């Protein structure tokens, strides 16, 4: 199994519903967020190009954050999801420094927190909160090894990219372009 997410940059309107849904579902402390929306404008007026991206942890396959964690608190869980075990984390911040996407933050309680692909929902057969709530249905989630999953199907038909693959992280957040 290999969980992945695909996000359609052509459909995303930047409403930030995914951000709020995540905060509510995961009890993200006030003032913090595990996902965020980036708006990229390219070109010179009037020739402008716009791209909206809902970003979060890429659940990398070659994760620098797992590699540098001294205690094994950051680890790969089933399906390649990268998780942090709270009571193994010493809060050294090495993983925050190691993530080229700045996807992690220090929880006010001291341990490090980040997107979990909503493992608690996956266990119950639900999709991650951000995917479920998106009003334009621009996010696709599922198992890359299953050719019939939403994410496999859309990646087969649409052109896509990942963010800074040259950082060697093998990210698993795909952006449809």
């Amino acid at each position: 199994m290999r969980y992945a997410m695909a996000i359609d940059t052509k459909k995303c309107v930047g409403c930030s519903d995914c951000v709020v849904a995540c905060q509510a579902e995961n009890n993200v402390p006030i003032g913090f967020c595990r996902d965020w929306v980036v708006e990229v404008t390219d070109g010179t007026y009037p020739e402008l190009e716009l791209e909206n991206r809902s970003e979060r942890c890429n659940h990398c396959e070659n994760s620098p954050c797992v590699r540098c964690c001294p205690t094994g608190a950051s680890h790969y869980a089933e399906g390649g999801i990268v998780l942090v075990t709270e009571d193994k984390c010493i809060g050294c911040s090495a993983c925050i420094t190691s993530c080229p996407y700045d996807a992690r933050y220090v929880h006010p309680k001291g341990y490090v927190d980040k997107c979990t692909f909503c493992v608690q929902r996956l266990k119950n057969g639900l999709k991650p909160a951000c995917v479920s709530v998106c009003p334009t249905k621009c996010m696709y989630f599922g198992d890359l090894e299953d050719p019939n999953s939403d994410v496999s199907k859309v990646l087969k038909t649409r052109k896509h990219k990942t963010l800074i693959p040259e950082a060697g992280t093998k990210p698993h957040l795909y952006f449809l372009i």
Partner: protein
Amino acid sequence: MREEIIVSGRMNELIDPHLQVWNWEIPAYLFLGGLAAGILFFAGLMTLQGKEKEFETTIKRAPLFTPLMLGIGLLFLFLDLKHKLYFWQLYTTIKLESPMSWGAWTLLIIMPVSVAWAGMYIKTIFSNFKWPYPNIAEAFEWISKQKTILAWIMVITSVILGIYTGILLSAFNARPLWNTSILGPLFLTSGLSTGAAFIMILSKDEHERHALARIDLLLIAIELFLIIHMFMGFRASTQVQIEAANMFLGGTYTAIFWTFVVVLGLVLPAALEIMSLKKLKVPYYIAPALVLMGGLILRFIMVYAGQMSRWLY
């Protein structure tokens, strides 16, 4: 033109607007680690060369400070942790891929080694000193018979510790400024240089000071070479590393780096050391004090600037 903004708002503390998750504790810890490594290295090396007479301060006096330096360094590392009660988790596994992990273990090994060394010589320095229990005195008696082995352990572990202070940073490919293998040797050299400087300040023997000044001159030359080499490497690398280097070649850190680290921390002390070797009258503690200051500022700048350097996407 390209403009990238987070429209949903993100103000994660210590991450936004740019990473600043490591503060003064980490550079201070790296400095103390490097300094202690330098002192222990020279103490071990001179012992192995059988130069106990000529290098009294190097071997006997300066190492007395190292348990304290390492202790304070570890305390700083501890202060930096944000989930402090779980500190012990660091010592439940060894992860060789994580410099934070093997560095913590190296410190755990070098700490008792430095205590053993200091305990062995404390009586020679303070003649009135008495161990509260005879057993302790006997233990140190026994240790002093194993001096050669201990010196070997010290030379090896101190080099590992010195390199570690650089590798801790260079292992992060997410921060282009740190992601160069030069950082290990650079911090090791700088650590040895600060170690030599510390001994020079303590030493009352001009012959010993001059010998150390000669070693220090070589170390400073190597450091300058490594710094130039590092920037050449950056300039010839990818855009992100070119931009990392530009922070020092016209950007925010230019003035402070070239003034305090290169000129005041390397070139000037080298000139003063040459002058004193040529028997010109210069107060002997100025050059080493400058070296110590330069080493400290180098680590602060590298830790802070590195966090500002990032990938673009």
